[in-house]
């Protein structure tokens, strides 16, 4: 597996698991065709033998496993992660739905301990499991939460409030498939479950991370302004609906025909707040120089993050890959 891990890079480790399997390499070329009509592509629930997590929800277990995998794919040790100098920024649009709904309808087969209905339960279990006592935040702004989480992590690192930041995204749909189907006008199929963890560290170019958000036409003007920058090397469209993707994709094609554009949902499907995290990893894998523009939208609000592409392409053992 390819990871982006060295003391000189911002992304020191990462893990991606989607309904398609582990890693970026498991993503299909065309998620819509690969789904073959399935509305939800679930992740297999990991087996967890940890007694401490016996009452935890599936989402908590998925999150803990994702952090373990990110650690395994990095040179960061578990003991480095523990303590007040690690921040945890969590992003999700859906991972609380299963526990909330089960508690609401009093599903006897899925007895949920009430505290696990809190959205903060998922990152909470991660902090407990890894002894993290640093800056801590859960962002729940739908599909825009992933971009907001990357921005918050960059802010915390740039202001020296932590030495490393975990950005954790969890999106699950299987337990509430009927609800998501009922709300089908909001989202495109396939809904692909995803868990993504990035371990970020400080870098000289961190100050170049730039976040902005705006509604409707204001948002599009804001995107245009950032695209005018000579350093924009690529665009990653992280949108939850085909309509938005088509609209902005056409606009980009008309105005900046030479700019490489990745439509993340073509590769992975709809995975909401996880999409920008996967989009960033896909951009880093392409080893371009300059900045990638991550673009998401939730309801009326466009979110844009300019992120410097500074990662070297490394093997899982931290060795530079040629080419």
């Amino acid at each position: 597996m390819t990871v982006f891990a060295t003391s000189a890079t911002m992304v020191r480790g990462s893990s991606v698991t989607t309904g398609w399997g582990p890693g970026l390499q498991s993503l299909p070329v065309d998620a819509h065709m690969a789904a073959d009509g399935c509305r939800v592509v679930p992740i297999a629930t990991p087996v967890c033998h940890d007694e401490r997590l016996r009452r935890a929800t599936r989402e908590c277990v998925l999150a803990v496993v994702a952090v373990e995998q990110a650690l395994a794919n990095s040179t960061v040790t578990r003991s480095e992660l523990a303590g007040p100098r690690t921040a945890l920024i969590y992003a999700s649009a859906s991972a609380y739905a299963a526990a909330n709904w089960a508690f609401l309808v009093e599903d006897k087969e899925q007895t949920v301990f009430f505290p696990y209905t809190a959205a903060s339960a998922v990152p909470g279990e991660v902090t407990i499991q890894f002894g993290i006592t640093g800056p801590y935040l859960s962002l729940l702004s739908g599909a825009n939460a992933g971009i907001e989480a990357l921005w918050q992590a960059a802010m915390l690192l740039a202001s020296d409030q932590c030495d490393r930041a975990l950005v954790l995204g969890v999106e699950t749909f299987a337990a509430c498939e009927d609800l998501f189907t009922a709300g089908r006008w909001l989202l495109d199929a396939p809904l692909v479950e995803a868990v993504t963890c990035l371990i970020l560290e400080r870098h000289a170019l961190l100050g170049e991370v730039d976040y902005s958000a705006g509604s409707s036409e204001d948002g599009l003007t804001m995107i245009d302004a950032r695209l005018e920058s000579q350093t924009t090397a690529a665009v990653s469209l992280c949108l939850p609906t085909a309509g938005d993707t088509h609209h902005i994709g056409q606009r980009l094609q008309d105005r900046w025909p030479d700019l490489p554009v990745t439509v993340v949902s073509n590769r992975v499907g709809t995975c909401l707040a996880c999409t920008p995290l996967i989009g960033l990893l896909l951009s880093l894998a392409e080893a371009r120089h300059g900045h990638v523009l991550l673009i998401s939208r939730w309801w009326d609000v466009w979110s844009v993050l300019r992120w410097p592409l500074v990662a070297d392409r490394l093997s899982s053992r931290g060795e530079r890959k040629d080419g």
Partner: protein
Amino acid sequence: MGVISPIGQGVEAYWAGLLQGVSGITSIERFPTHDMRVARGGEIKHLLGMLPDNRPLPACRAAQFLIHAAHEAMGMARLDDVPATNQRLAVVVGSALGGIGEAERFLDQPQNLHALAGAPYDGPTRHLARWLGVTGPVVTLSTACASGVTSLGVGADLLRAGAATAVVAGGVDILCRFVMHGFNRLRSLTRDEVRPFDRRRNGLLLGEGAGLVVMERAAAARQRGVEPLGFLLGYASCADGSHITAPDPQGRGLEQAMRLAMRNAGISGEAVDFISAHGTGTPANDRVETQVFKRVLGQRAYAIPVNSLKAHMGHTMGAAATLETIMCLLAWRHGQVPPTLNYGEPDPICDLDYVPGQARAYRPRLSLKTAAGFAGCNACLVLAGA
């Protein structure tokens, strides 16, 4: 600032209720409670019509609270008549429950897809953003019952990053069967009065409400001819990494949040005049908070007043910390600190000055606002009166 609370709707009524020691705790009437061990809380019986126009409000109760609070806050900040094109207004709302009230409504009315769309955490925030015609970022976050502090911290980040010229930030939560049922199951609700820091304290009661503030760079506000009501000097939100419900026995996360917020503000413990505590009235929270205050501030902790508003209104969850932040700024403005209600018997392990009985004449220029929540969330603000 804007307030919807069980002891008063609007900042003036809220402040009067705090000073007079009004209790907003009543029997819950809005939904069935026959199967609950404790059926009291800080329920808002009806929303006073404070909105000037006849635009229909969304059905979402949390959104209604937010819209009323925002109307007051925008008016006070004189931003209500500034054209949207002249500003990049953002909204940051923290909540422990989000749109769960709408999920309950959808459960009762499965054909009501509007209720389903409003059920996610960000449902109430989106309603508010639409109502205000927001042109900038629209952020929803949750650090459980510390959300009302965290939202102000993220609001300040948006201003610093230049992503917004003004931010409407704060917290909201409503009482509903979901949360009353949950806390009843946990047996954390008291059948007695809520008694923060008192030896007899044995649990909390829940409440509902919304608190919002308009945040802006001081220079930008003054340029518009508006004097700031207070300043946010520092903020931090930190994890306990200890337990999913109980606070860390040593209060590590809270201590880290206080120290980091003070460092960010560039102040030492000696500068602190007042602490607005989380003060839920549970045995563990009040003990841990007191220990942490003494560790962080040393002898200064004994010299300054510390209060809790949880006995006035119940624990209004995501709204609580913003409502308490507003109290800190009002305390500076009016030179009075509201009391901790129902405090009568000192606890040897909670040995600070908790402002018992009645409001005190005191003008705290520099205040700390602490908050904590499920899953080891802790947050702290450093506030200064203008």
